[in-house]
């Protein structure tokens, strides 16, 4: 599927005057969601930055139907909505728009349950790699060594790879995406909308205040994540696992940019020693090796 973003419908689904920070990566993703599926979806939003960026009732800056729900409940609420729509003959998709904290931590049982019973839901987890709404606390999705307000000397543990877990569990469609590659994300949303059952998209979404970088550099940080190999674009489509461009070329370690390019522009990694950066580089490679096994 090829298309040009500038040829997509002009209707805005994320309105000016919303309450997001300057340079919010998640909001870029939400705009793409609107472009891809704006008229066909209801959004289920658990407690997160996404509950706040809507702005203040009785107004709202999201021109799609939104149901705000408890922190751990989104996957199950979406199940109820999609079952109700089916029973009532309503066309459309129940789409969860959830942060990493609600997805990989507190709501993980509900996510895994929805995947196991193959509920007809599109679940988008935008990953800003911490609990941002409550002030940058670590989550299970925070990468190793990153500073957060509850890991003042850097996180000691690994990032949970929830997308891979769900692919292994056998969900019909699992993909990663990145806000610097909106066409790829758009296509994946459209693909997800074609497939019955549980669809999961893990969207990389930098957060300037949380990661401590200049809000003008959101897309640059996101692109560097792919170019250094930290973030891998892949897709698991009903049993077929494949890399998506441009990650396809970064399977070759020699083609990747040095990890320091990614690390050095983020204040959350400012305290890292060269040795620690090298260590992360090895972990990035190990992740590629894991992915390579699925590609075979």
């Amino acid at each position, binding site marked *: 599927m090829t298309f040009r973003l500038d040829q997509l419908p002009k209707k805005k689904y994320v309105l000016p005057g919303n309450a997001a920070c300057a340079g919010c990566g998640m909001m870029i993703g939400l705009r793409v969601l609107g472009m891809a599926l704006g008229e*066909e979806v209801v959004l289920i939003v658990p407690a997160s930055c996404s509950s706040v960026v809507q*702005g203040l009732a009785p107004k709202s800056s999201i021109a*799609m139907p*939104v149901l705000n729900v408890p922190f751990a409940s989104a996957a199950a609420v979406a*199940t109820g909505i999609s079952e109700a729509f089916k029973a009532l003959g309503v066309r459309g998709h*129940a789409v969860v728009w959830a942060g990493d904290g609600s997805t990989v931590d507190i709501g993980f049982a509900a996510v895994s349950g929805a995947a196991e019973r193959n509920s007809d839901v599109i679940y988008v987890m935008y990953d800003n790699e911490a609990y941002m709404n409550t002030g940058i606390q670590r989550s299970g999705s925070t990468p190793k060594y990153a500073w957060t307000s509850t890991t003042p000397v850097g996180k000691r543990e690994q990032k949970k790879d929830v997308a891979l877990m769900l692919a292994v569990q056998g969900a019909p469609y699992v993909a990663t995406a990145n806000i610097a590659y909106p066409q790829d994300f758009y296509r994946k949303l459209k693909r997800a909308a074609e497939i019955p059952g549980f669809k999961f998209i893990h969207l990389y979404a930098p957060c300037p205040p949380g990661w401590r970088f200049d809000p003008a550099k959101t897309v640059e940080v996101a692109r560097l994540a792919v170019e250094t190999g930290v973030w891998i674009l892949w897709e698991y489509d009903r049993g077929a696992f494949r890399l998506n461009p441009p990650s396809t070329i970064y399977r070759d370690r020699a083609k990747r940019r040095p990890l320091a390019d990614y690390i050095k522009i983020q204040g959350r990694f400012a305290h890292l020693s060269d040795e620690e950066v090298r260590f992360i580089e090895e972990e990035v490679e190990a992740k590629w090796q894991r992915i390579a096994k699925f590609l075979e």
Partner: protein
Amino acid sequence: MKTLATRKIALTGNYAVAHAVKMAKPHVIAAYPITPQTSIVEKLSEFVERGELKSSFVNVESEFSAMSVVYGAAMAGARAFTATSSHGLLYMYEVVWWTALSRAPVVMAVVTRTIGPPWNIHVEHNDILTLRDTGWLVAMAGDVQEAFDLTLQAFKIAEFAVLPMAVGLDGFILSHSTEPIELTPQEVVDEFLPPRRFDVPVAFRPGVPVTFGNLPSDNRIHARHKAALYNAHQDAKELIRRVDEEYGKLTGRSYGGLVEWYKCEDAKYVVVCTGAWCSDGKAAVDRLRARGMPVGLARLRFLRPFPAEWLRRLDLYDVVIVYDRDITPAGGVLGLEVKSVLSRAKVINIIAGIAGVDFDVSGFYETVQNAIGGKYGEVEFVI
């Protein structure tokens, strides 16, 4: 009008609830097992498997998700049902509140059971009483027939009051004991229960940009929303009466108001209780009356809406003996609530039957006499 055959059939309390749910034809049912509730959802899954009930039957991974599923379904305009007990109800508690403040008309059966530790599956009312502040309507069945009738009425009450409703039945005492009951014919149920309006509480549809539950620009918006919930409970009192009256006309069975008065007209002493053991209480009243003691009984059919107007009438009696099958550090819940609306009558709060301890007709018979005879303090444990 053609006459419709009323079927009489022997059912356990749980199966009676399942039959009522089947007749209400919910679009979505969420199920998670916990004793003594489990046989309700097992029976429903059978109905669905056999094609007798066309619901979406969702097996979830926790009660938290069970409540989330029926919440989502109700927000999308569907009729939705789940059932739980004890720890299951506690586990879903956050969504229980969210459901009420969303005004989602979910119906839930709560088969009452103790809260641990230790693990104990027997009856107690502390679990369902945790609903008292949430905004749910809460009823307690007195027998299997009423469990059936209340479940059917609950769908109509919930959908017209735009509030979730819980129907309580005592674990094992009602849930697992078999009584012959009358099943309302399906045609009558269809006449009684109109189709679910999809736009209650909101029209939540793709292409209609409604945002529900974002931060308020003024906290008074939220405050008014909460006040509206209180007001909805006050309005529900008349609604419950009307629904029951209409149900009575169609089925020949009606229960009156939020409180059932048993032999209270000429009484000096009144027993107050809720749930299945009220039958034992009534039998004790009969025995005491046979010995010339002017005792009556008030059975609380509904705990929410709070039946303040009914309970105030208790001030006409000399001694009000409130039986709680629950305990909090401040006393029994019913005892505290009854006291809160009385100014004259002497109130004695007896805590009995907690943790599933047996308490029968003779228990009532003896303790009522002790209470009247001045042998008890304000709060008395009978264990």
